[in-house]
């Protein structure tokens, strides 16, 4: 908690800086349209009035922070959490498939890493194809995945979670291959002298040694998983979730909605990443980690 308090001042200072910059850009980016509008309406507002107008357009190019804040507040606190317009509800929809996908993805990534580290055949043959798989643009194949899964009767949470899985397993696999191979050679030699089985070496040496890599990869993976969940909401009809809000906003040019959905997504992301970070620190402490 102490560390929490020590963060408040820096975070708020930097946020304040971001907000100021944001206002400046809002005026700059919204000005051309406002000028056009005034021209067509034959109005010649003064500078202050003009700036005020740029910051209160209904569909601005860059919404002003207070517009986003108001929208965010309304959609978060003033709506029942079961309403499809509530950001809480939509964030929850996205979060649930994120977490499921992250779970699958982490597990799959670890399984692949274990396979690659232990089975020579996999090391040589699998990795190039996993890399290739990652270069397939998800948004292009997501609809096909959804179609195929729907054809075999899988709908709902799972298809979206699978897209999260697809995006999140790779960072974990890459990180864990490195992590599982990072024990010092002397420690491996030690296990060798005990004629420890591969699984004993794995659990007692490789896994603990890979922990820093694991949690770092998991931070990247949980973020990727959230992106996947959001992307996965589009081809499933975009009925609910942060992705659906983004899409609806984009479709009707409701930039304020887009930004407040983006803010919601970012907050969820920050919370998830911090949760992984805290888990990592707890594990480190349980492993007798030495304070820096």
């Amino acid at each position, binding site marked *: 908690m102490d560390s929490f308090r020590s963060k408040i001042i820096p975070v708020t200072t930097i946020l304040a800086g971001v907000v100021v910059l944001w206002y400046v850009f809002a005026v700059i980016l919204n000005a*051309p*349209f406002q000028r*056009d*509008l005034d021209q*067509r*309406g034959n109005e010649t507002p003064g500078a202050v009035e003009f700036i005020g107008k740029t910051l209160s357009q*209904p*569909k601005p*190019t860059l919404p002003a922070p207070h517009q986003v804040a108001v929208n965010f507040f309304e959609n978060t606190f003033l709506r029942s959490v079961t309403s*499809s317009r509530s950001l809480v509800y939509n964030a929850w929809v996205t979060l649930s498939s994120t977490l499921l996908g992250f779970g699958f993805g982490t597990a799959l990534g670890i399984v692949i890493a274990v396979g690659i580290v232990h089975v020579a055949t996999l090391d040589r043959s699998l990795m190039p194809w996993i890399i290739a798989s990652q270069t397939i643009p998800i*948004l*292009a194949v997501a*609809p*096909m995945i*959804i*179609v*195929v899964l*729907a*054809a075999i009767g899988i709908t709902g949470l799972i298809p979206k979670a699978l897209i999260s899985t697809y995006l999140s397993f790779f960072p974990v696999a890459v990180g864990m291959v490195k992590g599982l191979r990072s024990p010092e050679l002397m420690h491996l030699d030690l296990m060798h002298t005990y004629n420890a089985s591969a699984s004993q070496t794995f659990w007692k040496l490789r896994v603990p040694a890979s922990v820093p890599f694991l949690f770092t990869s998991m931070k990247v993976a949980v973020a990727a998983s959230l992106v996947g969940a959001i992307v996965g909401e*589009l*081809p*499933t*009809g*975009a*009925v609910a979730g942060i992705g659906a809000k983004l*899409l*609806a906003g*984009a*479709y*009707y*040019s*409701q930039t304020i909605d887009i930004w407040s959905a983006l803010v919601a997504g970012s907050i969820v992301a920050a919370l998830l990443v911090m949760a992984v970070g805290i888990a990592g620190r707890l594990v480190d402490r349980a492993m007798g980690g030495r304070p820096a």
Partner: protein
Amino acid sequence: ADKVTLQLKWVTQAQFAGYYVAKAKGFYDAEGLDVDIKPGGPDIAPEQVIAGGGADVIVDWMGGALAARDKGVGLVNIAQPFKKAGMELVCPKAGPIKTEADFKGHTLGVWFFGNEYPFYAWMNKIGLKTDGGPDGVTVLKQSFDVQPLIQKQADCISVMTYNEYGQVLDAGYKPEDLIVFNYSAMGNDLLEDGLYTLEDKLKDPAFEDKMVRFVRASMKGWKYATENTDEAAEIVVDAGGQDENHQKFMMKEVAKLIDNADGKLIPAAYERTAKALLDQKIISKEASGAYTTAITDKAIK
């Protein structure tokens, strides 16, 4: 009740009000149908969904359906609720473009994903190249919104009468500030929203009967929607459509494209569509058997 899955071409909005009304008003129930309406989304191709067995019937534009048919998916038009096209190109009057003759050397926004055929057919007709050279036009792939126009990234953009045109107005443009090239008005329109199913399945009399009932109820829905536009828009919002005012606007505009709600396909429009596609080599061979009037004939007497 018989189950029917309908795959829409886009997200839930008044463009598909007829089906939502038919469901909400019990017209499908009355025909003994249990209809599942699946909204679409960006880059979801209804043709793929039906080929993969994910739907019994889809809403599609003729261009997309014929292209799929050319690739071996036996899509057949069984009804054509939209008689006129809603697509148009709009340009701000303050900009450089007043007539077709001004296009040369300018940037035009177009949707892709199978929505680009009417535009290319038109350019083909007036003999403009689309490669971005000085004696042709530069084409932009437009995203969902009307920003390219507001930001002046394009000189003209594509809109649907019932959707983006409204957004342009919302953005502060008045109709007199805009130059509009409407595809239907120019006689360049290609058929838009129609109902398609697979010809193999249609050979089954039971399925055919199901489709007859489906089309009958759907057109009843469309009729009701065009007569009660505000109520229809509310039904759409209840089904997940966004922004009630916008849906009401959209419903009114869509109603203008429906015309009589009999779902009958006009063969001349079909011929024009098929020819335009062949001219652009979107399809490799003459389309044949791509529509049937049998269903609408039985459905609407």
